[in-house]
């Protein structure tokens, strides 16, 4: 079926744009970049149609990548139902965001570079979701991290952008450290890295009651997932990643790359189901992240930061879903989230494009100037809030119901988070679009190349939940208890609607109430507003000690003392030896002659003695 063509198109696009894009007109760059992703999307559709209904995984082995002893690690791609969902999200949403970028990046320098990176990202992301072994997955995993770094730091003349790019890269290194250890452990225990044999071997094993090898593997892989998918404790890079261009935030830091962790956990469901402790950790981390990030989102004023914390929170939901055993529901939420969160970011990008401003306090009253952006953003917001029959409603309630059957308290925390989510999203929209203009003069609706993707995504945000993703995925995962308690659904929907109503009350009906409430909450508000000082705590507890250690120990002792000392010492010894030896080199020809004579005497003497001995 030529699966390799799916990632090959974007790779070709990257090479073309990367090599000759600089000297080519924008139309060429557009055609290459959009064409590559469109080709990839169409080929995905064709492949999936041909393989339908995908009851079993379709594996294609291309060549042996690593052969060492009896270990073969191949360049193998596979498509099953799980990767089919991911492929559709990545290529479909990716295509829309590529088209949108034509408009958004129209006036930016480095146009070709942007699209080259974006295509490279698509290549790695598609490799990641189609990889048939852990090592190839890791290649994609690292590759998307690289592209994330390149694109966050796209405006590399801004030091905040390069700092954010470094932060994202370094924090992800910490996660990947755990991830690679997990892969080593898998190899040690199963002598293979291919998905099928490893998972088959795993399911032969008993479910671990305590901490066994599978639990350890699960936890280490989870460390990688918390880095890539921005979960506690490694989520800190994602808010800063908003320094990148907005389409990047939509594609990489909302819809696709950050969901790689969820995909990986779902892919390794066999491991996690045999390691209940690791699975429980997934659920707890997801839930804690969901609530924690949602509370921060309530207080932020940068529109992209609000949505960034929202992304972290929604990723927490997906982890919660996977962690309570409802892997299908987690991926279902990944599917719907890709639509409404990409839309939120693209809408925010449209606002930023219109105003050149990201601060919600300086917006207001944009509804008449940018009606399409407004209404599409409302569609995304009702979807993420879980208003009945929108996409977010189905997936979120499936997760919450599964959580209820796992542990009721998880359901309640999740429901509170749902209320907070509705509140902060509508807060952002009300602040930006309703009320009176606060300090801007000119605003214009974005060109059709940007609004058409917005409209398409809005439609998907409303009806994308009708795709029976979790039923489609059901054969891949063991069944879990999923009730259909109506009252629980009503309560969580009620929480969402209450959040919307509260946002209306605070920011439309009673302007000024928000400030008064914030002032009354005082220290608590400050704590949340400053993101619980997590960045500062990390700075003091990790970054500063590392820097100090690097300065005082590694730099001044190891580098200056040991390494420089060794090199300089060798040099000094050589100089000293030369100083002694150069005395022989007197420049006095007659002394040289004397040395020659002496030497030949000694040779003769030696020959004579040797001869005498013979």
């Amino acid at each position, binding site marked *: 079926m030529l699966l390799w063509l799916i990632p090959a198109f974007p790779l070709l696009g990257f090479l073309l744009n990367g090599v000759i894009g600089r000297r080519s007109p924008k139309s060429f760059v557009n055609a290459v970049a959009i064409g590559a992703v469109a080709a990839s999307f169409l080929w995905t559709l064709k492949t999936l149609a041909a393989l339908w209904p995908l009851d079993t995984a379709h594996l294609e082995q291309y060549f042996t990548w690593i052969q060492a002893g009896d270990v073969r690690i191949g360049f193998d791609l596979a498509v099953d139902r799980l990767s089919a969902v991911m492929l559709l999200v990545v290529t479909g949403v990716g295509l829309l965001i590529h088209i949108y970028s034509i408009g958004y990046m129209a006036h930016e320098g480095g146009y070709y570079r942007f699209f080259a990176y974006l295509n490279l990202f698509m290549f790695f992301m598609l490799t990641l979701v189609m990889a048939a072994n852990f090592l190839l997955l890791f290649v994609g995993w690292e590759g998307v991290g690289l592209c994330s770094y390149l694109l966050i730091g796209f405006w590399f003349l801004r030091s905040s952008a390069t700092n954010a790019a470094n932060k994202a890269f370094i924090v992800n290194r910490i996660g990947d450290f755990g991830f690679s250890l997990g892969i080593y452990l898998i190899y040690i225990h199963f002598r293979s890295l291919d998905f099928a044999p490893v998972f088959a071997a795993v399911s032969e094993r008993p479910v671990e009651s305590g901490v066994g090898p599978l639990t350890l593997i699960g936890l280490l892989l989870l460390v990688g997932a918390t880095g890539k998918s921005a979960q506690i404790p490694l989520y800190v890079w994602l808010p800063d990643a908003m320094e990148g261009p907005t389409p990047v935030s939509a594609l990489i830091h909302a819809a696709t790359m950050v969901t790689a962790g969820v995909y990986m956990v779902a892919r390794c469901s066999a491991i996690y189901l045999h390691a209940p402790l690791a699975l429980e950790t997934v659920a707890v981390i997801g839930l804690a992240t969901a609530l924690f990030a949602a509370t921060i989102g309530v207080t932020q004023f940068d529109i992209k930061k609000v949505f960034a914390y929202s992304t972290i929170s929604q990723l927490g939901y997906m982890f919660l879903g996977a962690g309570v055993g409802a892997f299908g529901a987690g991926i279902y939420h990944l599917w719907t989230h890709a639509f409404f969160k990409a839309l939120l970011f693209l809408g925010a990008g449209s606002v930023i494009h219109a105003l050149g401003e990201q601060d919600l306090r300086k917006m207001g009253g944009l509804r008449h100037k940018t009606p399409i952006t407004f209404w599409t953003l409302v569609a995304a917001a009702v979807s993420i809030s879980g208003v009945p029959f929108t996409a977010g409603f189905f997936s979120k309630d499936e997760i919450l119901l599964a959580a209820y059957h796992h542990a009721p308290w998880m359901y309640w925390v999740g429901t509170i988070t749902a209320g907070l989510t509705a509140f902060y999203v509508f807060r952002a929209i009300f602040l930006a679009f309703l009320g009176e203009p606060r300090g801007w003069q000119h605003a214009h609706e974005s060109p059709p190349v940007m609004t058409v993707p917005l409209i398409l995504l809005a439609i998907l945000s409303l009806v994308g939940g009708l795709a029976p993703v979790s039923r489609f995925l059901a054969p891949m995962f063991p069944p879990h208890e999923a009730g259909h308690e109506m009252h629980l659904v009503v309560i969580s929907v009620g929480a969402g609607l209450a959040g919307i109503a509260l946002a209306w009350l605070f920011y439309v009906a009673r302007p000024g109430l928000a400030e008064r409430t914030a002032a009354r909450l005082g220290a608590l508000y400050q704590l949340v507003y400053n993101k619980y000082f997590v960045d500062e705590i990390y700075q003091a507890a990790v970054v500063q000690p590392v820097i100090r250690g690097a300065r005082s120990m590694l730099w001044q002792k190891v580098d200056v003392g040991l390494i420089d000392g060794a090199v300089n010492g060798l040099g000094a010894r050589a100089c000293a030896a030369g100083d002694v030896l150069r005395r022989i*080199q*007197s*420049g*006095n*020809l*007659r002394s040289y*002659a*004397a040395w020659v*004579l002496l030497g030949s005497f000694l040779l003769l003497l030696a020959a004579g003695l040797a001869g005498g001995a013979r």
Partner: protein
Amino acid sequence: MSPAGVPLSWYLVLAAFLFTLGAAGFVFRRNIITMFMCIELMLNAVNLTFVALAYHTHQVDGLVLAFFVMVVAAAEAAVGLAIILTVFRNRASLQIDEVQSLRD
């Protein structure tokens, strides 16, 4: 035994004497021309040894080597004298102790 009745050892002693004379002159004299002549003296002392031994053993190898030495000596004389001439032009002196600028 050679036809004229001169024993081999005489030739060798003479050659050793000439060689020692040349070596000593090279080490102790300071004039570059003199040192140059001492080199020629050493070369010819060695030549004498070659020829005497070739004659004594009735083999041609020593004679061939003697020709080689002569050729080298001629070439050396050409190059050496040219260098000496240049040194003299540049320094107006032929004292070997004053020519040591390669030391540094």
